[in-house]
């Protein structure tokens, strides 16, 4: 898996760009599931544009070192500030929203 950037801007987008980094280990089903879930959450719950960087720590251990990653999947909200960090497979939307600092029912 290459580190990938996804840029998504809804037509009515406005405000700050969300910068998210998802750290995963390898290309197994869990990693792919976490990515898919994150995209789905972003599409549903972020009102503005967002960028997701996916980092495979097996391929880029130095990026994991730099970010002090203890375990994966770890999601880092880089922007907007303050930065936040979430651990888990992102399967529980409510928890992810809470970790990202979004209200539970935030929608477009």
């Amino acid at each position, binding site marked *: 898996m290459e580190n990938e950037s996804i840029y998504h801007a809804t037509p009515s987008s406005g405000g700050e760009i969300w910068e998210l980094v998802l750290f995963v280990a390898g290309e197994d089903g869990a990693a792919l599931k976490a990515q898919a879930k994150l995209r789905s959450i972003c599409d549903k719950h972020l009102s503005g544009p967002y960028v997701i960087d996916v980092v495979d720590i097996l391929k880029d251990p130095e990026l*994991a070192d730099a970010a*002090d990653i*203890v375990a994966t999947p770890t999601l880092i909200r880089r922007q907007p500030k303050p930065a936040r960090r*979430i651990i888990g497979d992102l399967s529980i939307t409510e928890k992810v929203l809470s*970790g990202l600092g979004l209200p539970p029912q935030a929608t477009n």
Partner: protein
Amino acid sequence: MSAYSPYACFENLTDAVEIFSPVRDKTDHITDFCVQYVNPAACRLARKPREEQEGALLTVLCPTCKDTGLFDACQQVVETAVPCTKEHMVYHDGDAPGQMKRVFDVSISPMEMGLAAIWRDVTEETLSERHRESQLLQMADLVRDSIEGIVVLDARGIVLFANPAADAILGRPSQGAAGYSLGYPAVGGEPTTITVRRDDGQFAVVEMRAIETLWQGEPAFVVNLHDVTATRKAEAERERLNLAIEQCEEVVIVTDPAGTIEYANPVYEKITGYTVAESIGQNMSMHKSGEHGEALYAELWRTITSGRTWQGRIINRRKDGSLYPMAVSISPVRGRGGNVVNYVAVQRDVSHEQALEEQFHQAQKMESIGRLAGGVAHDFNNVLSVILGYTEMALTSIQSTNAFYDDLQEVHKAGRRAAELTRQLLAFARKQAIAPVVLDLNATIAGMLKMLKRLIGEDIDLQWRPHSEVPAIKIDPGQIDQILVNLAVNARDAIEGVGTLVIATDIAELDKTYCEEHPGFTPGCYVVLTVSDNGKGMDKETEDHIFEPFFTTKAQGKGTGLGLATIYGIVKQNEGYINVYSEPGLGTAFRIYFPPFLESEAVADGAEKRQLEPRGQETILLAEDEAPVLSITSRFLERLGYTVLAANSPEEALKQAQDYPHAIDLLLTDVVMPGMNGRELFESLAALRPEIKCMYMSGYPADVIANRGVLNQNVHFIEKPFTIQQLAPKLRKAIEE
């Protein structure tokens, strides 16, 4: 105490109140305290009436007061006038059984006359506090000793606390995980799998649960971490083993020590026809075919019950009653205690292997017969050369009116028939000299149809079904002729009256599956020539032998048994395959597969133009180790007008070439000779006489021609036995080229 006592206010207190006045010595030093007043609660506490206490000395009433620090505290309060509290004073009221130790907090306050000590019973609170402390210590021990990782995270996901197991799971066993940012746990009570990246570079698979809590009054999470790396690895290994056993092509059966089936993999169903479900609980003997005596099974059981593995081949019976051969290996499986708990049988269907073995033996047999036939035919050809040569010479030397002329003609005819037989034998042995050309199979067959119709007669309908796009093949056209004539004659004999003979061409793509089912075939595209008839067909037994030389079903004298053997040899020589399909009473179809010729080469020219007995006056060096052949060939050459230098060995030929003063135009040499073969002789001569040309003769060109009898088109060659008519034009061609 009077009702007007100043201490009346203490009378109803639940706390014990004692009022002491200090007792001083001459130096004003306090030596003791005198009890001035005790309230009822103090009497209950001391279990002594007021009269016994008031007026008594403290050290008498409470001998341990100095040891417990009570005396010193009282002294200090009197001297400093500052109140103090002595906590957790244990009041011993004797050591008798049933006497409870009570715990008091003692408040000592200065008074004008001395001090007041108020004893508050805190036994219950102390016990409860101690219990709580003990519980907390126990819980701390539990958390510390837990093999489950326990982590407390703050709301941002920073590790506030981690027990040793968590430190180890998170890969920070020495420095501890506290302070690390694990992240806000987006997990609930159900386990979520995460991958932990440890400090040592290893990865661990960890199940994580989290619940919200308060930690020192702040929102926090208690996270449980369970290292499942080993479990997951074991599960993956078990899964891999399961998949391997489930998907392998061998039958795997596990039985109990009595042979009762406990497990069988899916391929078992395919091979045996039984479902796994219906076989579980059955004994392995259900597969017995009856093809083996009880001795074999007895030996099998003797082997495996003694703890060894039994291997062998067994014919088993399928559910539908059909039999199948298996290569079987049965091994005992020992439990941890060392005793045999199961047997595992691995069985491989060897039907295909047996078919291949049979095919291999058949091929070996055909090869041996071919070698034998080829060898005999080669020597026989030399004999025939002499017979035919001398007969021809004799026939041309006498008048047809001569009394021996007809006899000689018969000898000559018989010789020709014999030569034809040896030619067929050589064809079967793939030793016949051929000159393959690239040809259009459809055009070649079309050119033969008239002849074939004459051959099979009017009662048989000959149908020709060419495929319009068959690619060219490379083959000697004469071999197509041999194939079709032989098959047409066989068809005619099989039809015995009115019937149909169909000759068809086609293109076939043989895939891997087909080739696996037809041992010997190689996958690829082939040109297919099919010759089928609706004659009487043949049974399997006949089918198995039809390509063997001298095998014939025809009446004595009607067939040589060499026709199909010749075809077999031709097909093999051309790297093709032949199949026969026959049903008794319905007919037979031969399908011959030729590899297509892929290079773009011109289609072969028509028939060779032959000139009858062209003569010459050149000098020919003849080398032949067989004296009769040397003699007759010399006479042929002389009759054709050539000057002949005859040599009965290569050495003799070289000597003659050295000694002969004039030009030598051609070397006519046998291919196989002792000491030096024809090619080597020619090469030696060419060094002496670069202008010399060469022509080879042999009954067996395969000996020296690398491609199993296929002649290089540039080499001049004549196959023995030959007639003067065959020799003459070839000689001219070789000399004039």
